[in-house]
């Protein structure tokens, strides 16, 4: 079964579709890969960039991907005559060591925005540890742009159902969280209220921190109602080769991000709007904060909003307290169950025998042996070591 964090195969298919993104990546690889080059493909998915790198003359390709999608890369490599040049590493790139450093590192670990989970730390790690000095990083640079968005349609999703719903229910407690959450969207050129401004540039050749902060500001050129801030990125894969996600450009897999304003903002021509926007990687995810200040043409303050995704989700105090260094966990049945299972792990006792033991010892928790079997299988999946690198040419299938 797919975990929610994994891409479905159809999503991999969409990413491989012949869009400007794929053509740009192919062009970049064609420019960067010299005959015999070693290429590292991070977040390889089903290995499309690895296959292209082989087609453009790579001597050795390391395809790194923790998801089972990588298993398809093995078939693709054989079907495309490059099985002898691709080595599969089913793990995170930060866990990989290479026999020789790569001449080219290609990746697309972005989400809607490049500020996504551990994208930037993974690139920094690969650049410093796995790439030859002076090697080629694809992408080379992403630039993030911001504009004010006028779109009652987008904003309605922050009012409904919290402030308005068909059932007469009072759901307003959810509204403060909703307006501190951003969402993936499609912004049309007609919804762009202020001209795009560059918010930040992520130059992967030199970047040394996943955190970003910067200011954008506009003087309103026309009256209108601002509902939020739109963000997107333009990519430069190698010099002169890239693609844009700006409103009006053909749709790619990324889309644009919409950060709502705390409340609708009526602007008059000449109003000065400034937004301090920051993104900090905390744990596995980014905390985005956006502080909006509006000064009217007469110099008076019109609005000041402080928003953050830190305020955008219900926060469980009980869960936080369980993560406190001073928290002393109590003995529970769940701990007894896991301890029972772990004590049986010796390379001899089979999962079905463990499951049987669980049904006998914890009959209320596991009334059926199948429930216990599913539990122990899931438990030990967590402890399985990542598979060793696989050179596709040496798999039994290939030797037959």
């Amino acid at each position: 079964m797919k975990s929610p964090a994994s891409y479905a195969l159809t999503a991999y298919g969409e990413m491989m579709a012949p869009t400007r993104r794929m053509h740009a990546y192919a062009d970049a690889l064609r420019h960067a890969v010299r005959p015999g080059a070693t290429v590292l493909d991070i977040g390889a998915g089903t290995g499309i960039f690895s296959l292209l790198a082989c087609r453009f003359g790579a001597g050795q390709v390391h395809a790194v991907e923790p998801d089972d999608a990588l298993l398809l890369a093995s078939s693709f490599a054989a079907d495309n005559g490059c099985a002898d040049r691709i080595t599969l590493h089913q793990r995170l790139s930060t866990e990989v060591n290479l026999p020789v450093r790569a001449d080219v590192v290609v990746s697309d670990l972005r989400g809607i925005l490049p500020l996504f989970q551990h994208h930037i730390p993974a690139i920094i790690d690969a650049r410093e540890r796995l790439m030859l000095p002076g090697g080629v990083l694809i992408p080379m640079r992403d630039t993030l742009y911001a504009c004010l968005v006028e779109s009652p349609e987008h904003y309605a999703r922050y009012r409904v159902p919290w402030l308005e719903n068909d059932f007469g229910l009072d759901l307003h407690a959810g509204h403060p969280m909703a307006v501190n959450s951003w969402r993936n969207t499609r912004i049309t050129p007609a919804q762009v209220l202020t001209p795009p401004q560059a918010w930040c540039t992520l130059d992967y050749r030199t970047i040394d921190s996943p955190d970003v902060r910067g200011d954008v500001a506009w003087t309103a050129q026309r009256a209108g109602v601002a509902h939020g801030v739109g963000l997107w990125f333009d990519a430069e894969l190698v010099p002169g080769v890239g693609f844009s996600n700006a409103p009006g450009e053909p749709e790619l897999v990324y889309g644009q991000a919409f950060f709502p304003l705390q409340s609708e903002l009526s602007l008059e021509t000449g109003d000065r709007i400034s937004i301090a926007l920051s993104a900090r990687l905390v744990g596995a995810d980014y905390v985005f904060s956006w502080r909006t200040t509006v000064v009217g043409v007469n110099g008076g303050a019109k609005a000041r909003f402080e928003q953050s995704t830190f305020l955008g989700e219900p926060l469980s105090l009980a869960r936080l307290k369980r993560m406190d260094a001073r928290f002393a966990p109590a003995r529970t049945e769940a701990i007894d169950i896991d301890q029972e299972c772990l004590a049986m792990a010796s390379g001899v006792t089979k999962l079905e025998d463990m499951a049987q033991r669980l049904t006998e010892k914890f009959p209320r928790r596991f009334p059926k042996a199948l429930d216990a079997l599913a539990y122990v299988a899931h438990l030990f999946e967590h402890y399985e070591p990542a598979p060793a690198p696989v050179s596709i040419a040496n798999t039994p299938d290939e030797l037959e």
Partner: protein
Amino acid sequence: MNLNDNLEIPEQVMAREVGDELVILDLGSGRYFGLDALGARWWHLIGSGKNLAESIDVLVAEYEVARPQLEADLLELANALAAHNLLTRKSQTR
């Protein structure tokens, strides 16, 4: 730290109320901290620009608490928060 210090909450420190308590997140370290209801009220007073002495004036009026004890407790709390970079003296900031 003393009672006349003007205090400031660094930009990388965020806070939100959860029930009666205040959860503080240091974006720099990714660590969470908690304050009880009185601590939460004090945090908001500091955030609004009051110094320690001024914040104590407000709290003494609002809560049934002896001033000497409150001064000692809040000085200790302020020093503890400062040790975790959750609070700075204004003179320390750029």
